[in-house]
């Protein structure tokens, strides 16, 4: 395994690189929380109160405590070193914002699909989206308080995932847990391109 050796005199101009990772999943599954847990900047986002009609449309049963949803962009940053960053972009959680996904996913290293076992079907669209476009993704099952702990094997079967796609149980409020999700994704994605 060879480390790339810089040519003499070229190190100073080594180009800056920002790596993009998407955080996807259904409404209220914890995307914003995940980004906030790991980001060194306060996540930038635009949140709008859902209208009463919107609440009905979004069917918040099981996520009663959440009154707003991310409707625009939501991103955080992790600086690896000067000139090397990871950016986490939360994808809009509602179907009417699908148009933003194509732009977001362009050039992305990969995606984390957050799943809530109480509403596993909510992450089907994200799984389909990344599968169709060949974007590497891992499924992170957010273990909410009070949610039944699911066997990853059952989650894999329910989502129809092939054996190769990693499934990680996580707590999006816990930094170490989020770190584990991201290292799993980075490792999986890099395997695919090397």
């Amino acid at each position, binding site marked *: *395994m060879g480390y790339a050796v810089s040519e003499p005199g070229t190190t100073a101009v080594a180009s800056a690189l*920002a*790596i993009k990772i998407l955080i996807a999943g259904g409404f209220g599954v914890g995307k914003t929380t995940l980004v906030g847990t790991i980001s060194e900047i306060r996540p930038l986002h635009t949140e709008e109160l859902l209208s009463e009609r919107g609440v009905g449309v979004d069917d918040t049963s099981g996520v009663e405590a959440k009154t707003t949803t991310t409707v625009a962009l939501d991103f955080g940053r992790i600086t690896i070193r000067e000139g090397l960053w990871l950016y986490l972009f939360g994808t809009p959680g509602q179907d009417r914002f699908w148009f933003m996904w194509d732009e977001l996913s362009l*050039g992305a290293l990969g995606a984390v699909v957050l799943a809530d076992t109480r509403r596993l079907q909510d992450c089907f669209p994200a799984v389909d989206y990344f599968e169709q476009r060949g974007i590497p993704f891992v499924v992170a099952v957010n273990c909410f308080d009070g949610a039944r702990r699911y066997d990853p094997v059952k989650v894999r079967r329910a989502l129809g995932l092939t054996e190769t796609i990693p499934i990680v149980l996580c707590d999006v409020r816990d930094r170490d847990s989020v770190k584990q999700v991201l290292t799993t994704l*980075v490792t999986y*994605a890099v395997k695919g391109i090397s």
Partner: protein
Amino acid sequence: MTGEDPGPLIRLYGLTGGRARPQGETFDLVAIVTTVDGPFHTGDLIPEHRAVLSLCRKPTPVADVASHLKLPLNITRVILGDLRREGLVTIERPRPVAQTIDERIYREVLHGLRSL
């Protein structure tokens, strides 16, 4: 509504002349923006433009420029498109992931994540 603040969006689109999309070739949310070496007169530039030129003396991703300006990404991108048209900044072209991430970068990222 009468007499109330018309809201931040109206002010923001004032910065872009009402445009929601940047001019010229499209660029990614994490494309690297770099200020072109001077000399040029910045006296008649709006403060947001001057702020970008100052920030991007160090190569900076688009998303970070937005974060520094405290402006939405789409507004920031219009501003950056204008600065590029004026020849004041360069914006990196999109590159496929496979061309940007080698073994060394991967190791750095893993190490960086683990030591957070």
